[in-house]
Each structure stands twice: as C-alpha cells, then as structure tokens.
C-alpha cells in the first residue's frame, strides 16, 4: 500500500517536472509576448476611451466613445485616409503580383548568370527603406532630379511628381512596387519550382501550347502559393509607413496620408493619444479583417484542390 502510494506520487512528480520543463521552454517568450505585445494592445484599447496629451500632470480623462464618434463623424481626414490605404494596397499588390509572376516565369529555367540575376533583384527589398526613399527623393526632385532631366532632354514637359497632389500617391505606389515586386517574384519562383512535372508531360502529349498550359496548369496549381503571397504583401502594404513618411510626410496637403501616417501624426506630432489609440483600434480591425478574408480564401481553395 505504502509503496504503491510512493510510486504514484513519484510518477506524478515526474509528470509535473516534465510539464515544468516543457513550460520553461516557452516561458521567456511567453513573458515577452504578454508584457511587450499583449499588454500594449490592451492598454491601447483602454486609452481609446480616454483623452490624453501624454502630460504627467494631467491624468487621462475618460470620454466614453467620443474618440470613435469623432473619427467617424467629425474627422475629415479619416475616411480619405481609409480610401487611400485601400487604393494604395490594392494597386501595389496587384501590380506586384502581375510583375512578380512574369519575372518568376523568366527565372524558372536555369541559364548562365541565373544566381547573379536572382541576387540582384533582391536588393530593392533588403536595402534600408529610408536610404532608398532618399535616393528616390533625389531622382524625383523637380529641378535637379534625373527623371525631369531626361524628360527635358527628350523635349517633354517636366513633372512635379511628389510636389503634386494628384501625382504624389501614384509615385509612392511606384516606389512600393519597385521595392516589393521582387518578393512576389521570389515566392512565385519557389512555388513554380515545387510544381509536379506530370501535368505538363500530359499536356505536351495532348499538344497544348505553352500559353494554354500556363493558364490551365501552372496558374491553378500556383493559386495557394499566390494567395499566401498576396496575404503577406497586403498586410505589409496596409501598414506602409517608411517610404510615405520619409518622402512626403502625408503631403502635399493630405494627399498621401494613409491610416498609418495619420495615426503617427495624431500620436507623435499632435499628441492626441486617445484619438490616436481609437484610430489604431480601427486600423487593427481593418488589417485583421483583410487577413481573415485571405486566410479563408486560401483555406477554401486548398480544400477544393484536395477533393
């Protein structure tokens, strides 16, 4: 009886020790996640119901849902920023996808210098975005920039580029497309190289043209990979900050202001922390919503393909 009890406590002790050992693997990471990530998100939610300028002498004042109603009914910068954020994301991700697939197809078969080309096209996305923005600022400068220099040399009208309310957002999109098309190309290329060979052999036997086999075999097989790539890129594109803030600061006027730069300006230039927090809650909800839609799409596609 006694021996039985001791073995029982012994095994449960071993069990407990093992549990503890396993937990100790995740504990440091878990503490970091709770303190550095979960807590700020919760604090941000709490702050969104308060008005505060960050002053140590005046405590945050509870204002209910005022910050949210202000956002949706009074602010004349919120909805334009939402529209611009979606326009920016939609245009750049679509362009990056199309160009990325094209480049991936060019890089599919090995040729002399294959690795060199693959390395060179990585540069736009690993180069420091702020440094790249500075290079684009110089190139786009209306009087000394290389683009207008070329336009003048071939007898065309120089453009204001970032100085124009109607052009600035599109110029920023072009920079983003330049920067991130290589990522789409890399992901698509990795997807292409993992495709099975059999469908192509069958298509070749059936006498399908290369265009036909691209649209009827390659593209459908690539859809799950492409959807994941579009998901990852869309999340990042919705949050684009570096190139916009460093090149235009949301201007001229507010013509390039997106949700991220608007939130930044409200928090760190106007110090309206409560309003910024409310905006961030909405911003987070938007990014989450877009992610969930893509994740669902990807799931239904892979389920259909599994059948």
């Amino acid at each position, binding site marked *: 009886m006694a021996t039985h009890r001791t073995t029982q406590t012994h095994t449960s002790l071993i069990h407990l020790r*093992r549990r503890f050992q*396993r937990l100790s*693997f*995740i504990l*440091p*990471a*878990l503490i*970091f*996640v709770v303190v*550095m*990530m979960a807590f700020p998100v919760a*604090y*941000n939610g709490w*702050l969104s119901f308060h008005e505060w300028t*960050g002053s140590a002498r005046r405590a945050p004042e509870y204002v209910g849902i005022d910050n949210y109603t202000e956002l949706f009914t009074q602010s004349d910068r919120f909805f334009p920023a939402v529209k611009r954020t979606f326009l920016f994301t939609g245009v750049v991700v679509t362009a990056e996808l199309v160009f990325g697939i094209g*480049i991936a197809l*060019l890089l599919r078969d090995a*040729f002399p210098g294959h690795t060199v080309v*693959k*390395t*060179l*096209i990585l*540069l*736009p*996305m*690993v180069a*420091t*975005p*702020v*440094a790249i923005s*500075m*290079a684009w600022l*110089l*190139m786009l400068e209306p009087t000394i920039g290389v683009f207008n220099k070329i336009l003048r040399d071939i007898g065309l009208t120089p453009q204001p580029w970032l100085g124009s309310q109607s052009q600035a957002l599109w110029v920023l999109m072009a920079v983003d497309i*330049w920067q991130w098309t*290589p*990522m789409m190309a*890399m*992901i698509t290329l*990795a*997807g292409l190289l993992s495709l099975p060979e059999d469908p192509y052999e069958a298509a070749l036997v059936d006498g399908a043209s290369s265009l036909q086999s691209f649209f009827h075999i390659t593209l459908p097989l690539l859809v799950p990979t492409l959807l*994941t*790539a579009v998901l*990852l890129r869309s*999340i990042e594109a919705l*949050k684009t*900050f*570096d190139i916009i*803030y*460093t090149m235009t600061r949301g201007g001229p006027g507010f013509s390039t202001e997106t949700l*991220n730069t608007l939130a930044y300006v409200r*928090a*760190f230039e106007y110090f309206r*922390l409560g309003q*910024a927090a409310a905006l*961030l809650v909405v911003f*987070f909800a938007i*990014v*989450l919503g877009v992610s969930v839609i893509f994740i669902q799409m*990807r799931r239904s596609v892979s389920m259909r393909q599994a059948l």
Partner: protein
Amino acid sequence: MTDLSQATTPRPHRPLSRQAAMSKRRAQMRRISAESVRAVLLLVIIVIFLFPVIWMALAAFQTQIEIISPGWGFTPTLRNFDRVFSEYNFLRYMGNSFLVAAVSTALSLLLGLPGAYAIARFHYDWLGVVLLAARIVPGITFLVPWYILFSRAGLNGTYIALILSHMIVSMPFIVWVMVPFFEGLPIEVEESARIDGATMLGTFVRIALPLSVPAIMTATIMSFIFSWNNFMFSLVLSGDDTRTLPVAIFNFITYASIDWGGLMAAAVLITLPVLVITVFMQRYVVSGLTAGAIKG
C-alpha cells in the same frame, strides 16, 4: 562494290531525315529567339531594379554643384563620405545601429528558439497562433503605448527601449521561420537521445539546434536586417545619443537646403552592409523573405 554500298543506303529515310533536320533547326531558331527575348527582358528588369541604387551611389561621389547642374558628367570625389563621418557623426550612429541590431537579434534568438522548439515539439499551438497574430498587428499599435510607458519609466531614448521594441518584430519572425523547420526534423534522433538519458534541454541544445543551423542562419540574418532597417520604432524611441542610422539620415532632409552629396553618401553607407550580407548569404535571405509562403 561501290554500287552495292550505295544501293544499301536506306533511301526512303532521306527525305524524312531532312524534314527532321529542318524542324530541328526551326525549333533551335525558335529557342534562340526565345532566349534572346528573355535576355533582353531580364536586362530591362535588372536595370529598373538597380537604377535607384546605382544613381544613389553615383551621386554619393559628386559635389553639390555637379548634382545640381543640368549636365551629366562629374569627377568622382570622396569628400561626401569624409563629411558624413567628420561633420555628421556617422560612426556613432553606425555603432548604435549595430549594437541595437546585434543585441535585439541575440535576445530574440534566446527567447524565440526554445519557444519555437516547444511549439513544434510540445504542441503549444495557441502560442504559435498568438505570435502569428503579432505579425498582423500594425507596429504602431505597440508603439503608442510603449512610448507612454517608456517615458514614464524614464527609458525613452535608451538602448533598452530600442532593443525591446526591435524584438517585437524579430522574435515573432524567428518563431515563424523556426517552427516549420523544427517540425520537419526527424523526431527519432531526439527520442533515442532521450532514452539514452539526455535531458530535454540537452536534447534541444545538442541535437535539435546543431541540425537547424541553416534555418537559424536565415532567422539571424533577417532579424539583423529588420533591425538595421527599422525606422518607425527608432524615430520615436531613440534619443540624441542612441540615434540609429535610418533616423540620422532622415534628419538630413529637415535642413533648409539639402546636402544631396552627403545624404547619398550616408544612404550608401547604410545600405552597404545589407547589400554585402545579401550578396554573400543570398540563399538564406531568399528563404527568409519567402518564409511561410510555400509550406504555409
């Protein structure tokens, strides 16, 4: 004899082989033209992707007058680089960037590697989901509370604030790269080590980690690059003494007249380490950038 040999040559085959040769030549021609179209397209693509970087590098070797003048020619000078170090204190900012990137990467590995191993082996799936969600949350959502809390703790402008904030990006990324890799390792080796009496920690350190060197390389390189390139967190949380390179270069353009040569020299200096890493570690950078997209 000669007649006979001529008679035995397979005549009926001749027109066919000529036809085959012609179609072969046609296919060859088509392949050559396809090859040259591809070569031209690739050249155009490379020029487009490299042009801003090359332009930046060229401007870094020009004087302000040469940059502003409408002409194209210039005599290379190193004065911009000299000025960047002597006037703009760039060595200090480089040191800051390097310190923050190295320490935040090291700490993220210390937390992320065991975390990822536990998610893969002991099935703490919920932690994996939480860390995935962290990639979706806009960074600025963390930044506003952290700015307030760091101010209160008197930590704004310190290395501690910068390192912790950079870890918000790199720690989840490391887990994101490592979990699928650990899941793919054969479990048998680890099990036999456990039977031989190795502890859980011993198995992880002596067996799982050495097998994961390529993935750890990817995680480390990308984490370093992310921190080196980080702008928004550093813009808010760095001080005069702890300023990192991206913030320092951004401050260039707040002057009334921009020193373009100095600005481009600074841009070259920031970009150079990342470019060198990419050229020599191309394989790891590619797998880092495409992580999660293929297996996902």
